[in-house]
């Protein structure tokens, strides 16, 4: 860059006397910049020579609070910038309100202006320093070199935030894995895990018989004990595999010759974390649990530790589905919430958790229906429909009931006569579900509503009117009725009905466009103060994660799914299908799935916190209560929602 009098003189003079790392051949300040870069995406994934290229060509500039950094009046963008300290605010002038509004905020480690740089145009947004700010920049030639040579860098520039989200997500997963070590659930003493009686044998038992015993009991290990019930060895399926692979002469040799002697053991009072650490260190999948006298009490396997929640789930589902009375079902709701807690503590994915809640809710609904049928069967074949979030299998603990009945009219009866029989039954089911914690629907979208207790022909009519005479009111209902699922009774009638609905929607471009317009009503809460746009002026610091965060995803994706004949109601499944059909780019679909799941995860964690404090559940959060990583995740997720809505706008020219 610099011109010097002497052609041989290097721009940067470096001579180092130490050679501990390859980096040490670089000047201290270059290394320091590389260290800074490594903490942030996409640099964290870039190779050292590329980082060095960045650092060596970087320029550090200071901007005081409020100073312009880049302006739409400027030339084609020639520099790639990274915030080193402070913040950059994107500002657009709103002609309507005659004032500048913040459209985004870029903080430490973030890059700008990607779109303008890639598009080789001036920026469209005024970039202004928010607070005293230092930025690193590289010029166009250095940028082009990196863009050409570093794949992570190129990918990042082209995809912007979506690949950042990938990385944030990877980090969450690794934190979740790490937090398994510290989460409270692993503080559980082992005695609570190893409740099953261990499968044991004497040292003289032939291997084949020991294996038979393992097989009978469906376990992966057998503990060899002496007369005092003290473990002397352990034999696992892995040992068996090795034995056979090594070409054992006979499987009738006594097990003591092939067992692992002196097995790992822990006291019953040790906790799950100790066991996990022991397994991780020694690469064992099984640990013997003994009492103070070294007598075997049980065996804990790796699977026991890490899929405890699944065991609970199966157990809980079974208890619900066999409950003999309503009061039992009501009391079990508490266990559902506790299960969710455990799963979240284990770092479970929010998609899994909502599905599990939905599964348990389904089991509960079915059981309520079964108990009522036992007491008082109206004698009409029907399918119990569920709409909205339950239809999408996206329920959290805070849930309304949205349901309906699709009945088969018996010969010789009119539809009204059927309704006369079914409505009282439905009323009772709705009431009992309310007692189980499924709040009665304020909009009366319930099976006990005569308008939603219909025959197949009536439903078909209903949907036809719904689609062909779209009124604003209909559109509000679209988020409920177009996400439906059968949870009790025959599936086939709904399948037939929904095929017709899909065909009608696919053919009706106007309805699609109106749906799309409706889906754009709820904007992701980004803009003002610190990039988050709050719910309203009274609640200065409140975001509604459901309506402002999730709804933009759910509603936009619904439009695409219905327009493309996708039957699935679940948002994540719809995204998968849309990617499969090439409606969405694979990577976009991935980014949207993640963003949606991340918002959902933050929402569920907030629910669990509220429950723990005995506070009523809401979908409201104050982002300031979140840790910085979650805040950033939320912000990036909302940006993804904006991208998705832009795609919808484009598709329907809105």
């Amino acid at each position, binding site marked *: *860059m*610099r011109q*010097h*009098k*002497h052609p*041989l*003189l*290097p*721009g*940067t*003079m*470096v*001579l*180092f*006397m*130490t*050679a501990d790392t390859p980096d040490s*051949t670089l*000047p*201290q*300040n*270059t*290394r*320091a*910049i590389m*260290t800074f870069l490594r903490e942030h995406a996409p640099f964290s994934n870039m190779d050292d020579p590329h980082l060095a290229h960045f*650092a*060596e*060509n*970087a*320029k*550090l*500039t*200071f*901007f*005081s609070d409020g*100073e312009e950094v880049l302006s739409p009046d400027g030339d084609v963008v020639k520099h790639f910038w990274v915030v080193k*300290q402070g913040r950059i605010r994107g500002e657009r002038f709103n002609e309507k309100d005659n004032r500048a509004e913040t459209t985004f905020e870029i903080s430490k480690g973030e890059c700008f202006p990607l779109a303008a740089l890639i598009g080789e145009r001036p920026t469209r947004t005024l970039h202004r320093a928010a607070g*005293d700010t*230092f930025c690193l*920049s590289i010029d166009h030639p250095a940028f082009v070199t990196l863009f050409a040579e570093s794949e992570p860098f190129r990918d990042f520039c082209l995809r912007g935030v979506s690949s950042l989200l990938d990385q944030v997500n990877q980090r969450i997963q690794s934190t979740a894995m790490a937090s398994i070590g510290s989460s409270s659930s692993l503080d559980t003493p082992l005695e609570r895990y190893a409740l099953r009686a261990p499968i044991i044998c004497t040292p003289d038992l032939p291997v084949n018989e020991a294996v038979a015993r393992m097989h009978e009991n469906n376990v992966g290990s057998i503990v060899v004990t002496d007369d005092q019930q003290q473990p002397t060895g352990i034999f696992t399926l892995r040992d068996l595999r090795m034995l056979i692979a090594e070409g054992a002469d006979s499987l009738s040799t006594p097990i003591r010759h092939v067992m692992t002697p002196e097995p790992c053991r822990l006291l019953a009072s040790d906790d799950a974390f100790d066991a996990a650490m022991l397994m991780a260190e020694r690469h064992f999948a099984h640990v013997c649990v003994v009492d103070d006298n070294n007598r075997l009490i049980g065996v804990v396997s790796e699977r026991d530790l890490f899929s405890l929640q699944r065991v609970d789930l199966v157990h809980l589902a079974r208890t619900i589905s066999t409950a003999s009375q309503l009061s039992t079902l009501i009391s079990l709701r508490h266990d559902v919430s506790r299960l969710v807690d455990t799963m979240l503590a284990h770092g479970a994915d929010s998609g899994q958790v909502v599905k599990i809640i939905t599964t348990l809710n389904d089991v509960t609904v079915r059981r309520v229906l079964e108990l009522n049928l036992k007491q008082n069967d109206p004698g009409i074949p029907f399918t119990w429909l569920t709409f909205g979030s339950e239809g999408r299998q996206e329920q959290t603990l805070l849930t309304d009931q949205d349901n309906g009945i699709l009945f088969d009219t018996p010969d010789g009866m009119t539809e009204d006569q059927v309704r006369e029989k079914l409505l009282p039954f439905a009323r009772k089911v709705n009431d009992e579900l309310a007692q189980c914690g499924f709040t009665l629907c304020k909009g009366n979208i319930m099976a006990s509503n005569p308008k939603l207790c219909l025959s197949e022909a009536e439903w078909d009519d209903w949907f036809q009117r719904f689609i062909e005479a779209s009124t604003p009111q209909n559109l509000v209902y679209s988020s409920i009725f177009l996400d439906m699922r059968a949870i009790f009774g025959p599936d086939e009638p709904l399948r037939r009905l929904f095929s017709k609905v899909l065909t009608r929607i696919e053919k009706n471009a106007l309805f699609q466009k109106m749906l799309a317009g409706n889906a754009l009503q709820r904007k992701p809460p980004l803009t003002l103060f610190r990039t988050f746009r709050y719910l309203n002026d009274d609640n200065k610091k409140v975001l509604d994660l459901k309506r402002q965060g999730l709804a933009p995803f759910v509603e936009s994706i619904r439009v695409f799914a219905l327009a493309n004949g996708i039957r699935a109601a679940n948002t994540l499944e719809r995204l998968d299908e849309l990617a499969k059909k090439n409606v969405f780019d694979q990577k976009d679909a991935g980014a949207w799935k993640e963003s949606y799941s991340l918002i959902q995860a933050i929402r569920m964690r907030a629910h669990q916190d509220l429950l723990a404090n005995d506070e009523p559940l809401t979908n409201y959060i104050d982002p300031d209560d979140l840790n910085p990583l979650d805040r950033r995740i939320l912000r990036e997720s909302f940006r993804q929602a904006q991208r998705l809505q832009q795609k919808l706008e484009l598709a329907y020219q809105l």
Partner: protein
Amino acid sequence: MFSNVKRWLSLKRNGHSSIDMDNLPTPKTAGDQSLSNSRLIVLDLETTGLNTAKDEVIAIGAVAIEKGAIHLDDQFDLILRRPELDIRETVLIHGIGPEALTQGQETKEALLHLLEWMNGDPILAYHAEFDKRFLERTLKAQLGYTRSHVWMDVAELMPAFFPKAEPKGRGLDHWSDLFRLEVSERHHAAADAMVTAELTLIALNTAQKSNVKTLKDLSQKLRYQRRLQKMKRF
């Protein structure tokens, strides 16, 4: 960049100095050059002690400010000698054995390159008097060089432009804490030069707004600041 160093070293090995002693850049004076277009050197020395008459310079770190930015491709980061290190370790890097390179020559060469690299531009440093004395003494002793550069003290620059700021003390750390700057490695000449340069950027940003436009303006402002300090003392 590194290949340049190698080239320089290979020249040295062959016994040719790449610097023409007689044609070193002439130090500039603080005239009407505009601040935003001048190149400023921000420098920090690492020494064996605080005695400017006896102690030795160990390391020189410097960055250049130009057009309101620190350019990482225009920096100087040189460790002159490490008495605690065996010279044999260095062979790995620069390929020069102890027999080919006595330490005195190395220092001489390094200083010549520093002068060449500085290009006679004004030098800023934190507590500049200290660095000035050390550097001038070393230049004189090693090269017989006696021309003086324009020096400015960043320790004076900061209170001059931020009279209302209240750092917890008068040191580099206090000012960098005040602006929440991070020092990558404390008491590393280049890292200290960097943080000093960052403070300078902040001060120059304010200077632009307060009608301090030229090197001359800046040096007058500093002189005024010194007088103010003296008056305060009495």
